[in-house]
């Protein structure tokens, strides 16, 4: 019994994840090899992105504002396999570090405009993991 209780206790510690505010709209985002599916339109303001990584590979999620620059390509690193996040500066409004398949939450504050959701793991962007959303 003590054993079970201890296991339960340990399990309980790991379970507490991101706490979302009641006001934030929850948006379902799905990732898989090698696609990102998200609604085309998002509400402005606080948005809670529920990121479902369906795997099999690990993935990350970057939310990049694409204000006014229109068709301009994202800057690429020298390896040619990843986007240069540092070059984007404040345009990256939210990032979820690489993670195993599962659900994670990312809270972002969105202003009306264009945004791009990408996975910037080596080759993943070029493998097809990018999605464009509009905030209105």
């Amino acid at each position: 019994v003590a054993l079970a209780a201890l296991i339960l206790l340990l399990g309980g510690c790991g379970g507490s994840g991101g706490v979302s505010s009641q006001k934030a709209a929850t948006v379902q985002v799905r990732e898989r090899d090698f696609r990102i599916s998200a609604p085309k339109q998002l509400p402005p303001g606080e948005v809670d992105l529920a990121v479902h990584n369906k795997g099999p590979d690990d993935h990350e999620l970057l939310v990049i504002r694409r204000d006014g620059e229109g068709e301009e390509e994202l800057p690429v690193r020298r390896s040619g396999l990843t986007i240069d996040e540092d070059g984007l500066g404040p345009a990256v409004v939210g990032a979820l570090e690489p993670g195993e398949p599962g659900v994670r939450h990312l809270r972002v504050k969105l202003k009306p405009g264009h945004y791009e959701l990408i996975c910037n793991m080596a080759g993943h962007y070029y493998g097809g993991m990018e999605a464009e959303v509009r905030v209105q």
Partner: protein
Amino acid sequence: VKRRNPSFGPFQSRGRRSIVAILLTFTLVSAISVALSIRTTARSKHQASVVQVAARQRTLAEQYVNDVLLARSGAPADPRNTAMLLKSSVRALQEGGTVPAVDGDDDETEVSAVTDAEVTAQLEQERRLVADLTNTGRALLAHRPVDAVPLTAHERLEPSDPVERLRVLAALTSNVSLNVARTMATTTDRNISNLITLQVLLGVTGLFAFLGLASALIAAGRRQISHFRSLVKSSTDLVLVFGAGGCRYASDSVLKMLGQPSDELLGHGFGKFIHPDDHASVDAACTNGEPHELLFRMRNKFGEWRHVEAYVTDLREDRHIHGVVLNARDVTERARLEEELTRQAFHDGLSGLPNRALFRDRLDQALARSLRTRDALAVLLIDLDNFKQINDSLGHDAGDLLVREVAKRFSGVTRPSDTLARLGGDEFAVLLEAANEAAAVALAGRLVGQLSEPVAIAGRDLMIGASIGLVLHPGGSGNSEELLRHADLAMYAAKEAGGGRWEMFQAEMARAAGELLGLEHELQVGLKRGEVKVHYQPEIEVRTRAIVGVEALARWHSPTRGNVPPDQFIPVAEANGFILRLGEFVLRTACEQTANWRRDGMLPEPFTTWVNLSGVQLSAGGIARLVERVLEETQLPAGMLGLEVTESTLVAEGSVGDRAREELENLRNLGVKIAIDDFGTGVSSLGQLQRFPVDVIKVDRSFIQGVEHDVKNAAIAANLISLAHALGLVAIAEGIESEGQLESMREVDCDLAQGYLFGRPVSAEHAGDLLAAYVGSATSKLVT
């Protein structure tokens, strides 16, 4: 189903089951812990190689891109081999098997299939990506359009530049490979940390189990001890442990019995409560552990001496006890019962006085003491006079009352130190220890005096006397049986002197009684030793003085007593039946002798050997058969044997007389002559003579002795003889000592005579000489 009542088992540990459960848990926990450690370690080792292989894929994917580019530019490279390594590695990871070695890098590695679901999915993705990568690489090398290569891993490759496509695919492959390796490493870490957690848990469980075990063991031990303690405490048995320093433990029951706190008893204080007489034996048992059973007395809190029976167990070698254990029980009640039983066995129920057995015991003890102390002692034997009459006329209840009253009166005049006992019936005895003659005589006088007052029984005043025999033992060795016998003789003397008196034992009394006893015994021995001889006295014809027979007479010459007259030893032999053997001896000897004389031609014609028959022989039966057998054996004609019987035998009343007369008839039928001995002195009427099977009468010597001078005797003798003749019987005159007597007999026409005048009883040898001389002279007379 019937439920069994749980039995009380103080010596079974009820904690045994929990101890076993705890031990099992402990063992199980340890086993699980060890098994897990082994399994986890083995798995970790295996996973390390899998991780290594998975990580190698990343390098191989990048090398493949280089190899393709090199090969495309004509440089020496073997992208195909790299492709093969990539493919077979991922297959080995997926399905298990041998991972090929990379030249100059590592060795072949055996791996088993990965089972983790997440990793399996990643590996499948890796396999697809490797396929897409190598297919793209091949198309590039073959200068085929790369866009046309079908992709299987769901990629959406934007760039159309073939090299860029190849690099992206390699990056994807590399990525997933790295993730496989990382996931697996994470799994291993997780397993190890799980193992650590589990080990900690198991350790804690084990610790609890161990603590539980310890406490269960302690509890079991306590329980056992408390079982024993409560057994010992609640038991009425007294438990004591003795060690070097005296008493070391005394159970509650001991404290309760003695009414003392334990510190009063422990050590050497215990000895105070033991009877001084028992000190030595208790001490010996407590120091040596022997004997194993012990009886002693202890003073309880009320000051009573309690009898205690103890079992002694020597546990000095026992490392827990180091002492001698006494397990004792109060057996006072039993001892009392035994005492009571002993009292009953040694006391007379009616009078409450000691009985014969106890009296004898006390007397024996007193004699044993006297042997040491040389103290005199006295025994008084008391017999009530006329007790039988009182018993018969007033009944046994009156007799019992009388005995009780007499016992009471006698008790009143004896000292407590004297033993007054009832030997049975109306017989009492007193033992006086350390007493002189004066004291004994004084007591005898007091006892007689106690009965001078009448005893009131059944509404009557009974006068009762006592005959007391008194015997003194001067001190030293003595025999209780002899003392009692002497007292008995003295008592009879008192009784014979009229009762109501006491008599002191005199040596003559013993002699008088002892003579008879001795004679009886000596006669028996004497017959065996040939001390008894048959002598013969001749019988003559009065008219001719011719020898016509002999009377055979038993003569006893004792080496200690000299010649014992027949009137002394015959009554003794008749009294105890020895006469049967003695009579047979005389009969046989006389017949043999007569037959011998006859054979030797020493006998005149006619000739009769007369043998005396005792009344006992006749009434015992079988004498006729015996005579017949003896005659047959000795070859003696029946007509030459005569048997003399006394008058009293013939006239005996009842069956005894009938049997005697029947035997005489049988004897006479054999041809044997029958004579009546001592005729004239008996009580038979002359008329009865006719009925008796008789041939001869012997006129008693008392009539013959006075025949010369006493007219009356002479007349009687004459009448007896004429009567005999009238009945057709032959008359013999006994005790003829003078010629005058013989002459008188001749005058009254007596047929035969016997007496000193013709010869005393003589031995067979002398008789033979006499006969030979007579026959010789008769023949020569006849010849001349």
